[in-house]
């Protein structure tokens, strides 16, 4: 296999994201930047979830908890402690990673359906906990003092900066996904996904590998959370741990095709595009969740491998290229 063919699996996704990033500059509209921001955020979140779901085969119904936790942590450091944004983002990510590590120690030994069940409760339990946690503002959350934006050149400039940070995180997520996918570690994860017992017999130290996968899948969502809520100006429990976000993440991963680098990106793009349309249409606004549910059901019933997975099955050549 020629060298350049090997890297298509990386360059294609990166190119797609680069195109997205440039698009607002072309149209010059602020609204475009907002939409692209949402898509980039989705791409970063979904690519990260893919490391756990697509590569390792462990379904997490509550992955949004890392977004919320990182968001809260970062926000707290920014507003209550007055720390610089960069550190807040970094620590938001690391904090989420630590949470994943601790959580993983407890629940990763559960297999298949039981693990999924455990993750369902995680989001709700975390929300209930944060609701009572006074240092994080309890049920009313925290609000950012506007003067914090001054340190970054004013609110408008800060917003623009957030856009580029999220873009950078999306790139990072893709690169991380690619590195994991093509590494020996990634091969171990795939083996676990296919048959965990057989993988252990062959020498894959499943408990460690799974923990690392979980941690890696949590870091970038934590960082995204920190940026998102900095941009938002305030954070509250229902915004940080939204019920529907978990299913949206799942839909996006599975729509594009879990287990590939490109899949989550396509899925994120397609779903956000559809959602954007739904939200503006008066008919569909209220049943957004139902549409997401129906979509997921259709995918599960008819194209469980997602768009990219379906393509990969059609031709061996595609399989090598569309990592």
């Amino acid at each position: 296999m020629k060298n350049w063919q090997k890297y298509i699996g990386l360059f294609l996704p990166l190119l797609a994201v680069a195109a997205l990033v440039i698009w607002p500059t072309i149209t010059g509209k602020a609204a475009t930047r907002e939409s692209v921001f949402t898509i980039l955020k989705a791409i970063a979140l979904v690519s990260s979830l893919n490391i756990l779901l697509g590569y390792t085969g462990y379904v997490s119904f509550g992955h949004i908890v890392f977004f919320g936790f990182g968001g809260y942590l970062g926000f707290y450091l920014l507003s209550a402690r007055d720390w610089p944004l960069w550190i807040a983002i970094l620590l938001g990510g690391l904090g989420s990673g630590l949470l994943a590590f601790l959580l993983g120690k407890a629940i990763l030994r559960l297999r298949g359906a039981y693990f999924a069940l455990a993750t369902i409760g995680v989001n709700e339990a975390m929300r209930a906990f944060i609701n009572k946690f006074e240092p994080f503002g309890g049920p009313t959350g925290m609000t950012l003092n506007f003067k914090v934006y001054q340190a970054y050149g004013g609110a408008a400039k800060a917003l623009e900066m957030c856009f580029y940070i999220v873009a950078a995180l999306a790139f990072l997520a893709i690169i991380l996904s690619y590195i994991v996918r093509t590494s020996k570690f990634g091969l171990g994860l795939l083996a676990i996904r296919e048959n965990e017992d057989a993988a252990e017999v062959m020498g894959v130290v499943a408990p460690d590998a799974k923990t690392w996968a979980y941690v890696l899948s949590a870091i970038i969502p934590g960082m995204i959370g920190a940026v998102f809520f900095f941009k938002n100006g305030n954070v509250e429990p229902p915004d940080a741990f939204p019920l529907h976000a978990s299913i949206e993440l799942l839909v996006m991963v599975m729509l594009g095709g879990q287990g590939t680098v490109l899949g989550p990106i396509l899925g994120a793009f397609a779903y956000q595009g559809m959602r954007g349309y739904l939200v503006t249409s008066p008919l569909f606004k209220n049943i957004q969740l139902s549409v997401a549910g129906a979509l997921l059901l259709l995918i599960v019933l008819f194209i469980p491998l997602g768009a990219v997975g379906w393509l990969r099955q059609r031709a061996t050549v595609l399989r090598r290229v569309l990592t």
Partner: protein
Amino acid sequence: MQQINLLLASLPDGILLGLVYGVAAMGLTLIWGVMNVINLSHGPIIALGMFGTFLIFIKLGINPYLGLLLVAAAGLLLGILIYLVAVHRVINAPHLSSLLATFSVNMIIIGLGTAVFTTSPYNVDFSMGSFKIGSLTLLGTRLIAALAAILVTGALYLFLYRTRPGKYIRAVANNRAAAELMGIPSMRILALSFGLGTMLAAISGALIATFFPFSILSGSGYELKSFVICVLGGMGNPIGALLGGLTLGVLEGIVPAFLETSWVPVIEFALFILILLVRPSGLFGAKR
């Protein structure tokens, strides 16, 4: 001393509630026992049961306990529909597929429900008076609901052990391939079993509606309780579900004496994880 009084006051209530929770959990554990599927649409169906009582009582003026039969029938039909549309195709696929399929149905119901009912709380103002036994006051609604729960359990057992469809269900639960070889129409039996499971969920919802205010989102709290009860009692074990329900009810009766009630979901979740880790076959033994 005050805590003991609180305890005495809330304990009987907890037991009665626990029986109703047990019915809900029985629905979940039945589906798991028969076809190895965890019905993640369990919560919203409980919520639909609640709304069923509301509509029947408020809009039609029928006594909620008579309306229970209507809600049960609706729950049964809904379950059969969900099975045929969403579950049957992935019944033999890896667990993940059926989890996602029922999760999708969950979201579909919540989405539609939110559109129709919004997320505001609803109330069924229905009182059956109260009874004083010594220093305890028991609400009539609780007593009747507990009685209904026991009757439903009895009816379920009669059905499973004394009727032919019930026997078919037990056969399919035991060994689906062998049952098919003996001519049992497995798809119909599976649909029926799923429907029974959702029927129990709807019934419990209908009963809970007479206790507390509710919204379309209330189901998820009871879904979590059902999961906890199922792992407590052992997945696939209906009597275990009832006993587990009692246990949880008692626990819920005890907790408010020492902690704020909003800690309850966190404690339940912690308990859930703990049991899965320590004794995944449940306190009363699982079917598998």
